[in-house]
C-alpha cells in the first residue's frame, strides 16, 4: 500500500470507528485509506493514492455518522464517497461489511457500471488483472437486470502510436486524464461529450487551451513572430515561457530514418500529440479501455511470470516489473517504489526493451579469421584464448585502452576497472563514451565518487528551490522531472533552469529560465540570479550532462554550493554512469573514490586486489585513448557497449578502432564496433543477468535475473578472460563485483583536488546548443516502432532576430542548415525566444545526429545558413 499521508509519529492522530473497530489515523487521512489500515477493502475505481480525489465513480460509498456540536453522533442522510472524505474525530463509518445501505449502494453502482460494459473479458488484455472484473466478482451481483441496449463505439481509437482506446470498455473514472493533467502535465487526452456519450478522446490543443498549465500553446500567427527578443537573464513569467514553448515550426520534415508503426496525430506545432508518460495511463486504467499497441492481444496476465527489474535507460533507477513468458519479455510495468519512482515511469522505460532481442543479437563468440578477414563463430574457450593472447601482446606493444561504456551495472563496471589495472596494468580506462572533460573527471573525483547516497528524490521534493544547471529533466531524467513537478504542484517549490531557452519540461515545472548562452554556464552559475535562486536553505543544484562541455561550470557550481549552502547532485544521462564512477572506471580514479594520484590509495587497492602494485601513471581519458589508438601508440582496445556515434568525435573513434592492432568487443548486439573487432564476446542484456545500478542519488538499485539464459555478464566474461591470461580476479557470479566493491569501503583519505577552471574562448559565428531528447535514435530504443512514433520531431531552434539575419522571412517556411567543416544537418526551423547567435539541435534525433555529422557539442562554434524557401502551406 502506498502511504501518501505523512508519517504517523509527527502528526496529529484522529480516532474513528470503522465497522465497529476503533482506529487512529493521521489527520487528513481519507476514509478509504483508514479502512485499509484495518484490512477493510472498500471497492473503488476512480480513487488512486497518487491522484487528487475525484469522487466520480461512486463505487466506494459508505455510511457515515458524525458527532454534532453536542457530541451526539448523527448519521449523514446519504452514503458518502469514502475516497473523498477525510477522517474526523469520533466518526462512525460503516462499510459494505456492516451496512446494508452501503452494500446496496455499492452493488447498485457496480450494476450501473456494468450495464454499458462489454463483458468481453475473454479477449481483453486486462482480463485476469482487472479491477472491474475482480471487484464485480467480489462486490457485484451475479446477474444483471439490464436487458436493454448497450452503448457501443467503433473500436478502438488510436490515441498515439502506442496507446489505443476501446471506449466501450471505459468506465470514465478519469484516472488517465487526471494522471495526464496532474502528474505528467500533458493533457493529451480529455473528457469530451457528456452523459452516456461522455468519452475519453484526444483534443486538439486549440480546444485544450483552457488549461493553465497547458504545454501546447496555440499556434500564433506569423505576425506575432516578429523578431523581438527579450534577452532576459532571469525569471521569465509563466506567460512568456508559454510562448517560449510554442514551436512555430516553419520548415518541412524530411522523412526520418526510424521505423514507426503508424502515424501519431500531430499537434498544431507539428509535434506528435503525445506524452512521454502515456504508458502509465494504461497501467492505472482499472479496465481494459487503454491498451498498449506493443502488448495488445499478446498475452494473458495469468500466463506471465513477473520479475523485479530496474530500468536500464537513464540514471533515474526506476523500479520495474518485468513480465515474461517462455523466455521472452512480454511487457514492462512501473513497479512501486515510494523512495524512487513512486508508481510511475516514462514510456522509454516501459517500452524500450526489444533492443536486446533483435536479429543482431550476438549468441556466439566471434573471432576474425586471419585468412578471410571475416568474423566466424567459435567456441568460448577458443575465443577467450585468442582474446587473451591478443590483449597480452597489445599490452606489451604499447598498451590497451579500455572503453567500457556508461550502461554497465556496478559489478560489471568494477570488473572493467579491476581488469584494466590488474590484467592490462593500465589506468587507460574511461566509461565516458560521450562528451567529457578533465574538469568533469576532477569534479567526479572530488565531489561524487565515494559520497554514497546524497541528494534523494525525497530531498528534491522537499527542497524549496531547485536549480537545474544544464539539465533538461523531462528529456534526460524523467523520474526526476515527475518528482519535481509533484512538489511544484503542491505549492511553494521553485525551479530554475540554466539553459538557452525554456523547454516544455521547464514550463510544466512553472520554472524560471536563467537564460544562458551555451558555454557560459559557469558565468550563469556565478551570477547574482543563481545565488538568488538557491538562497533559501535546503535548496538543491542539479548538474546535468551538458555541463561537461562548459568550461568552468563544475567549479562554479561547487563555488555556488559552498557560498549558498545548497546541496549538489550530479545527474548523468545513463544508468551505468554513477556506478562506473564508484567502480573506478575513470583514468584518475580507483574504486570507492580512491585517487590514482594518491600513493596511499594505490597501496590500499593493490593490497585489496592482491597485486604488488598498481600503475601509478594517470590514465588517458576516452578522447586521449582514441587519439593514442589512432596514432598507433595504444596497440589494443577493449570495448564494452559503446556506440562510436556517441563519442565526441565519432570519426576519430572509428579511426582508432580501425588502426588499433587488436580490438576485443563485449557486446549484446552486433554494433559499429563489431565491424572492427578481432574478437567479439557476447554478453547478457539486463533481463538476462542480475545486477545493481547506482542511480543518480547514489542509491543501489539491485535487480535479479529475469530470464533463464546462458548469456554471461560482462564481469563473468572478463573474469574468464583474466583466468585465460593467468590472473585470478575472482569476479564470477552476478553480484561478486558489487559485493567486492562494497567490501572495499569508501576512501577515507584525502579527496581528489577541486576541478581547475579553463576558459576556452568561443570562436565563430554561432554557438551550438544541444541535448538529447528522451526518445531518439538511441540504440536501446531499437525495435519499438510504436514508441518511436511519439518521439518529438527534430527541429532547429534560433531566436527570431538571428533567424531574420539569416534571411528567414516572415510567413515563409524555412529549413536551416547547421554546418561546419565536418558536415551539416538540415532541419525545419522553430523560432524560439533564446539568445541571439545560438542555434539548438537535438543531439541524436532522427535527422539530427549531431556528433556523427558535426563532431561538435554544446558550446561549439558552428555556422548556419538558410536551406531553402517554401511558401507556408505550399
Amino acid at each position, binding site marked *: 500500500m502506498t502511504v501518501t499521508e505523512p508519517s504517523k509519529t509527527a502528526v496529529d492522530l484522529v480516532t474513528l470507528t470503522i465497522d465497529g473497530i476503533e482506529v487512529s489515523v493521521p489527520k487528513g487521512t481519507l476514509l478509504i485509506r483508514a479502512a485499509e489500515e484495518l484490512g477493510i477493502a472498500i471497492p473503488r475505481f476512480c480513487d488512486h493514492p497518487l491522484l487528487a480525489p475525484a469522487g466520480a465513480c461512486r463505487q466506494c460509498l459508505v455510511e457515515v455518522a458524525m458527532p454534532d456540536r453536542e457530541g451526539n453522533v448523527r448519521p449523514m442522510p*446519504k452514503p458518502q464517497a469514502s475516497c473523498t472524505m477525510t477522517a474526523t474525530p469520533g466518526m462512525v463509518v460503516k462499510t459494505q461489511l456492516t451496512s446494508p445501505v452501503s452494500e446496496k449502494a455499492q452493488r447498485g*453502482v457496480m450494476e*450501473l457500471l456494468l450495464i454499458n460494459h462489454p463483458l468481453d473479458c475473454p479477449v481483453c488484455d486486462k482480463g485476469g488483472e482487472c479491477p472491474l472484473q475482480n471487484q464485480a466478482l467480489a462486490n457485484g451481483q451475479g446477474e444483471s437486470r*439490464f436487458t*436493454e441496449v448497450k*452503448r457501443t463505439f467503433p473500436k478502438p481509437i488510436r490515441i498515439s502510436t502506442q496507446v489505443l482506446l476501446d471506449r466501450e470498455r471505459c468506465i470514465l473514472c478519469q484516472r488517465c486524464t487526471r494522471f495526464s493533467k496532474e502528474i505528467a502535465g500533458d493533457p493529451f487526452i480529455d473528457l469530451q461529450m*457528456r452523459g452516456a456519450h*461522455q468519452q475519453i478522446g484526444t483534443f486538439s490543443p486549440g480546444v485544450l487551451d483552457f488549461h493553465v498549465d497547458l504545454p501546447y500553446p496555440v499556434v500564433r500567427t506569423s505576425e506575432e513572430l516578429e523578431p523581438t527578443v527579450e534577452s532576459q537573464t532571469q525569471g521569465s513569467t509563466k506567460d512568456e515561457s508559454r510562448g517560449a514553448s510554442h514551436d512555430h515550426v516553419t520548415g518541412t520534415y524530411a522523412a526520418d530514418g526510424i521505423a514507426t508503426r503508424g502515424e501519431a496525430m500531430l499537434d498544431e506545432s507539428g509535434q506528435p500529440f503525445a506524452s512521454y508518460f502515456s504508458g502509465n495511463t494504461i497501467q492505472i486504467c482499472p479496465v481494459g479501455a487503454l491498451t498498449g499497441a506493443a502488448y495488445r492481444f499478446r498475452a494473458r496476465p495469468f500466463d506471465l511470470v513477473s520479475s523485479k527489474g530496474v530500468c536500464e535507460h537513464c540514471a533515474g533507477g526506476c523500479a520495474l516489473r518485468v513480465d515474461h513468458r517462455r523466455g521472452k519479455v512480454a511487457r514492462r510495468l512501473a513497479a512501486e517504489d515510494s523512495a524512487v519512482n513512486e508508481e510511475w515511469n516514462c514510456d522509454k522505460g516501459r517500452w524500450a526493451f526489444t533492443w536486446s532481442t533483435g536479429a543482431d543479437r550476438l549468441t556466439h563468440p566471434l573471432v576474425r579469421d586471419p585468412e578471410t578477414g571475416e568474423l566466424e563463430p567459435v567456441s568460448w574457450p577458443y575465443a577467450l584464448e585468442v582474446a587473451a593472447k591478443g590483449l597480452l601482446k597489445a599490452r606489451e606493444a604499447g598498451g590497451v585502452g579500455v572503453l567500457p561504456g556508461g550502461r554497465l551495472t556496478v559489478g560489471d563496471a568494477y570488473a572493467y576497472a579491476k581488469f584494466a589495472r590488474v590484467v592490462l596494468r593500465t589506468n587507460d580506462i574511461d566509461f565516458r563514451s560521450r562528451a567529457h572533460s578533465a574538469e568533469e573527471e576532477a569534479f567526479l573525483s572530488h565531489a561524487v565518487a565515494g559520497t554514497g547516497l546524497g541528494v534523494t528524490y525525497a530531498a528534491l521534493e522537499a527542497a524549496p528551490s531547485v536549480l537545474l544547471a544544464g539539465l533538461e529533466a523531462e528529456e534526460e531524467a524523467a523520474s526526476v522531472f515527475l518528482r519535481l513537478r509533484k512538489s511544484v504542484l503542491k505549492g511553494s517549490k521553485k525551479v530554475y533552469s540554466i539553459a538557452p531557452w525554456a523547454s516544455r519540461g521547464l514550463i510544466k515545472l512553472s520554472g524560471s529560465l536563467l537564460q544562458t548562452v551555451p558555454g557560459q554556464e559557469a558565468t550563469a552559475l556565478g551570477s547574482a540570479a543563481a545565488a538568488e535562486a538557491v538562497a533559501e536553505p535546503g535548496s538543491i543544484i542539479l548538474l546535468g550532462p551538458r555541463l561537461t562541455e562548459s568550461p568552468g561550470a563544475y567549479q562554479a557550481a561547487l563555488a555556488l554550493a559552498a557560498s549558498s549552502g545548497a546541496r549538489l547532485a550530479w545527474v548523468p544521462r545513463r544508468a551505468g554512469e554513477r556506478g562506473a564512477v564508484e567502480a573506478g572506471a575513470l583514468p584518475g580514479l580507483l574504486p570507492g573514490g580512491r585517487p590514482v594520484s594518491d600513493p596511499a590509495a594505490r597501496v590500499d587497492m593493490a593490497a585489496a586486489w592482491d597485486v604488488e602494485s598498481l600503475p601509478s601513471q594517470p590514465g588517458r581519458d576516452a578522447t586521449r585513448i582514441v587519439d593514442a589508438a589512432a596514432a598507433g601508440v595504444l596497440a589494443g582496445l577493449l570495448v564494452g557497449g559503446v556506440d562510436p556515434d556517441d563519442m565526441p568525435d565519432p570519426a576519430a573513434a572509428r579511426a582508432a578502432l580501425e588502426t588499433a592492432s587488436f580490438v576485443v568487443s563485449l557486446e549484446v548486439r552486433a554494433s559499429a564496433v563489431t565491424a572492427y573487432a578481432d574478437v567479439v564476446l557476447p554478453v547478457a542484456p539486463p533481463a538476462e543477468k542480475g545486477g545493481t545500478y547506482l542511480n543518480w542519488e547514489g542509491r543501489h538499485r539491485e535487480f535479479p535475473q529475469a530470464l533463464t539464459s546462458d548469456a554471461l555478464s560482462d564481469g563473468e566474461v572478463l573474469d574468464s578472460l583474466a583466468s585465460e591470461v593467468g590472473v585470478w580476479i575472482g569476479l564470477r557470479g552476478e553480484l561478486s563485483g558489487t559485493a567486492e566493491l562494497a567490501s572495499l569501503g569508501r576512501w577515507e583519505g584525502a579527496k581528489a583536488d577541486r576541478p581547475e577552471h579553463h576558459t576556452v574562448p568561443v570562436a565563430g559565428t554561432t554557438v551550438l546548443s544541444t541535448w538529447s531528447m528522451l526518445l531518439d535514435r538511441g540504440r536501446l530504443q531499437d525495435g519499438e516502432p510504436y514508441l518511436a512514433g511519439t518521439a518529438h520531431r527534430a527541429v532547429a531552434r534560433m531566436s527570431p532576430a538571428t533567424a531574420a539575419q539569416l534571411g528567414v522571412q516572415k510567413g515563409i517556411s524555412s529549413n536551416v542548415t547547421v554546418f561546419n567543416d565536418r558536415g551539416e544537418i538540415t532541419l525545419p526551423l522553430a523560432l524560439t525566444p533564446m539568445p541571439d547567435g545560438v542555434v539548438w539541435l537535438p543531439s541524436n534525433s532522427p535527422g539530427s545526429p549531431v556528433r556523427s555529422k558535426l563532431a561538435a557539442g554544446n558550446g561549439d562554434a558552428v555556422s548556419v545558413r538558410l536551406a531553402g524557401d517554401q511558401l507556408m502551406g505550399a
Partner: protein
Amino acid sequence: MTETVREPVTLTPVLSKHWNEAESWTLESYERNGGYQALRKALAMTPEDVVGAVKDSGLRGRGGAGFPTGLKWSFLPKPDGNPRYLVINADESEPGTCKDIPLMMATPQYLIEGAIITCHAIRAERAFIYLRGEVVHVYRRLLQAVEEARAAGYLGENVLGSGQNIDIVVHAGAGAYICGEETALLDSLEGRRGQPRLKPPFPAVAGLYARPTVVNNVESIASVPSVIDNGSSWFSGLGTAKSAGFGFFSLSGHVKRPGQYEAPLGITLRELIDMAGGMREGHELKFWTPGGSSTPMFTAEHLDVPLDFESTGAAGSMLGTRALQIFDETVCVVRAVLRWTEFYAHESCGKCTPCREGTYWLVQVLRQLENGQGQPSDLDRLLDICDNILGRSFCALGDGATSPISSSVQHFRDEYLRHLDEGGCPFDPVKSTLFAGVNA
C-alpha cells in the same frame, strides 16, 4: 404549529411592478420608479450592516435550495486584500422554470442594483452574471443594462463617489443544465468543462479562480434592493415565518392565464389557479410540479399545500424554483415523465456513474413502458434504479432525475400498468395540446 385561519393571499408585485410600463427595461424607467435609492442607502451602511439586514429579512435563496442568503454571505472569510467574487446564477434551465429570464428581460436593473449592493456587502469588486447561452436576447439586454448603469456611475470606478470600484461581467454559457449547479458553473465560467467540483472546499472559501465567492440566483439578488429599501421587517412580514418574503410563481401548462405571479411564499396552488383564471375550460387538474421537474409531482390532493419551503417538504416534495407546471387529465403521466427523463439523460454531465448510466437505463425502461412493452415488475426495477441513483450521485442532478419517476409511480402506478394492459399509451396526445379540437 398548524395555522387554522388563513388570510386570503393577494399578489405582491415588487419586482414585476413596472413590467407594464413602456420600455420598462431602461435605466430611466427604473430610476423613475425609485431605482437605485437602495444602493445609495446601502453604500451609506457598513458591509456588515448590509449583510445583517439581509440576514434579518429572512431572504432565502430563490435558486431552488432555499439557503438563507445573508448567512451564505457571512461565510466568506475575512478579506485578505485579494479578489473575492459575486457570481450570479442565471443559467435557468430546469424544465418549467421561467422566472429569471422574464425578470432580466423586463427589469434587468433590479439585478444590476442588487449585484452592486451585494458586492458592497461582501467586499467584492467584481460580479459575474452567468447566463444560459441560448437566450441571446437576454444577453443583449443585460449587456445594455450594464452599459447604462456604468454610464450613470453606478458601476465602474468609484461607484457613486463611495470610493469603491465595482463592475459586472455578463457571461453567456454554452447551454448546459449542469452549468446551473454552482460549482459546475464556476468551472464553466473559468473556461473549463462544466462538471461539478468536489466540495469542500466550498465556493465561499475557494470558488471562482479559487477565491472566496458567493453564488446566488438572479431572483435572490434582485430581491436585495427591496430588502434594503423597505427594511428587513417589511420583507420578513411577508410570507411565512420560516419562508419569508415574496417570489415569482411561474404557472405554465393547462391554466387559462399562464405567467408570472409574484406572491408571498405560502400561497397555495388553489389560490394561484384562481388568479390564473382557472384550469383550461372543461378540464381538471391531474398533476403538477411545485418547483420544476426535479421536485416530486403533486396531484389535486395537494391543491391547498402552502407553497413555502417547509410545507412542500412536509408534503413530500420541494418548493424548488416555484415552477408550477400544471397538467390536466388529458396528459399521460408516463409520456410526461419519459420526456423529462430524456432531458436528464441528455443533460447528465457524465461525471458520476449513477446519473450517467442510470438515466441512460431509465430512458430505455420508460420507453418500453410507454410503448406497452415489458412487465409489471419493470416498475419495481424502475424504482430500484431510482433508489440506486438518489443520494448516490455526485450532485443533485441525478437526484432530480429520479423525482418525476418515483413520484409518478407513487401516484399513478395504475396508469403505468394500463400501458402494459393496452399494449400502448391509452392517451391521445393531441388532446393535451392547445390546438386540440381545432381541426376536429
